[in-house]
């Protein structure tokens, strides 16, 4: 296996007295999809936010392409080539789809004082990228607030895929999506991975994880329960690990194995 693009070593994150992460190690290499699984409140979102520069880890080191890096702002991690779809999507309802898509990285034309936002090109690329994800917009100037939850999620994914030069982080990207859009997203993850980008994929859905994942790390109460590679683990084992094993087993009977 090649060297990891991002290697997170013993990351701890405390929010006051709350210990959200108690020493998590994780890495992602080029061209793989590394799934991060775990129950609600396990610390998945907090963890990827330390990777994307939103949170500064209380302890631990981040190695980016072998060099130690500190991300002070999300902008720093973006400039390194990491793009993220946050669980809350980081979209602004009052702004148009295009303006959201390019927020923080607007394409420009002209020079010096006449450098300006190239709206036509921005609109064109936005529509094109959205079409690739299987969504037809009414227009690029449609406000994000008027989109459905799934459409919104798709804009956020399209944006991250477009900007994710080296690493793409997806925090529960499929939670609001229908069947067709979900398979589109999973196909996109596969396509992006084949282009040599490292994908970090957070999900609750073990079937989605099994469909695209190369490695699986389960997080529980701020700690890793271990990492498994594709083929060495079954969906049931992952499911059990996520839920902490025993509780789910006792439910198995009444639910008839539907989870």
């Amino acid at each position, binding site marked *: 296996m090649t060297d990891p693009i991002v290697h997170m070593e013993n990351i701890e994150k405390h929010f006051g007295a709350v210990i959200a992460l108690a020493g998590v190690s994780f890495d992602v290499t080029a061209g793989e999809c590394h799934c991060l699984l775990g129950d609600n409140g396990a610390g998945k979102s907090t963890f990827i936010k330390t990777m994307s520069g939103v949170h500064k880890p209380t302890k631990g080191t981040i190695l980016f392409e072998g060099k130690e890096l500190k991300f002070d702002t999300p902008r720093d991690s973006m400039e390194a080539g990491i793009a993220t779809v946050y669980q809350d999507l*980081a979209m602004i309802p009052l702004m148009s789809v295009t*303006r959201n898509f390019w927020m923080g990285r*607007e394409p420009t034309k002209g020079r010096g004082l006449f450098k300006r936002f190239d709206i036509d090109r921005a609109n064109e690329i936005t529509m094109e990228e959205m079409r*690739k994800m299987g969504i*037809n917009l009414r227009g690029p100037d449609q406000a994000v607030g008027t989109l459905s939850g799934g459409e919104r999620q798709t804009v956020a994914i399209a944006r991250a895929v477009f900007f994710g030069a080296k690493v793409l982080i997806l925090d529960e990207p499929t939670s609001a999506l229908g069947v067709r859009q979900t398979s589109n997203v999973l196909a996109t993850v596969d396509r992006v991975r084949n282009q040599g980008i490292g994908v970090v994929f957070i999900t609750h859905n073990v079937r989605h994880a099994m469909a695209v994942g190369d490695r699986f790390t389960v997080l529980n109460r701020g700690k890793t329960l271990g990492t498994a590679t594709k083929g060495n683990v079954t969906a049931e084992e992952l499911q059990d690990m996520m839920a902490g094993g025993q509780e789910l087993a006792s439910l198995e009977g009444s639910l008839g194995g539907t989870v």
Partner: protein
Amino acid sequence: MPTEANSVDERIGTEPLISRLMKRPELGAIAGVVLVTIFFMITADSAMFTLSGILNFLTPASQLAILAIGASMLMIGGEFDLSLGSMVAFAGLFFSAAVVNFSLPLVVAIPATLVFAALVGSISGQIVVRTGLPSFIVTLAFLFILRGLSLVGLKLATGGSTQLRGVREAVEGDWLVPFFSGDAFGGFFAWLASNGWVETFKNGTPKVTGIPVEILWSIGLAVLATYVLLRTPVGNWIFAAGGDPVAASNSGVPVRKVKVSLFMLTAACAALLAIIQVLDAGSTDARRGFQKEFEAIIAAVIGGCLLTGGYGSAIGAFFGSIIFGMVVIGLTYTNFDQDWFQVFLGGMLLLAVLFNNMIRKRVTGER
């Protein structure tokens, strides 16, 4: 990928022009200008809409617009500045002291005043972004601090008076004066008069000797601000920072820098107004800019700015200021009691807020 994804979605109707226009934030203010104009056309003396009558209300309107354009950009960026009015007095003091007490030429005094005001503005900006306190309360504190400092400073500069005179004498003959005071295009108006195309006095001088410079400044600022907001990356950052600072920051927008810069910009707008007013009056006093912060915020709201940020327009604030000027001055051309002005203003504000709220729901498709 399914092929149907590339075909046109049959659920998309074409949006009528009217409904697209309805989504522009400045629409309400433009409609307001039309309504107020019609109102005064009917009720006011016809002198109001002669050239000199129009300039008569455009002059205070454009002075307000200089503040309101700054205030609208800051509001779009999600913050308020209640210390704007006090900043006019404070910057007026700084500027007057620079030219009178220190005999600086305008080419030094004007940039120094703008930079000084921007630095003071950056203090409130830094406090707001670092503490996360509402700008409402932080700048309310500066409303008093700056007003008080203006009083104390004036007494120090004059040896006990709250008025600093002698600015006109001090700047006499300075080549920059015509850019910041008096009327522009005087030659053009004289030429119009000599051809009999504008009204003149008996001796042949035109009744209107030119366009007051503040009108040109406010138009220039409105155009520039609108360009920045709609056509530059920074404009996108301003809308984003006001719409949702966390989402904006997570998407790589330098939210803090944007907000502090906006505080600096509004303060500089206040300083520009102070320079224009002080040069015009030839003196400054501690009451300069009194309560202008409210007028500026009202003009910005009439112009389509949401109090919650993330939405609005600079050109709207410009039109909001014109409404303001028309109402204040227009009433003197009517038989109405002057004091109706406040009622009128409150009514306008209420109407504007209701209207903006409706527009916002349309834009966001709130259900």
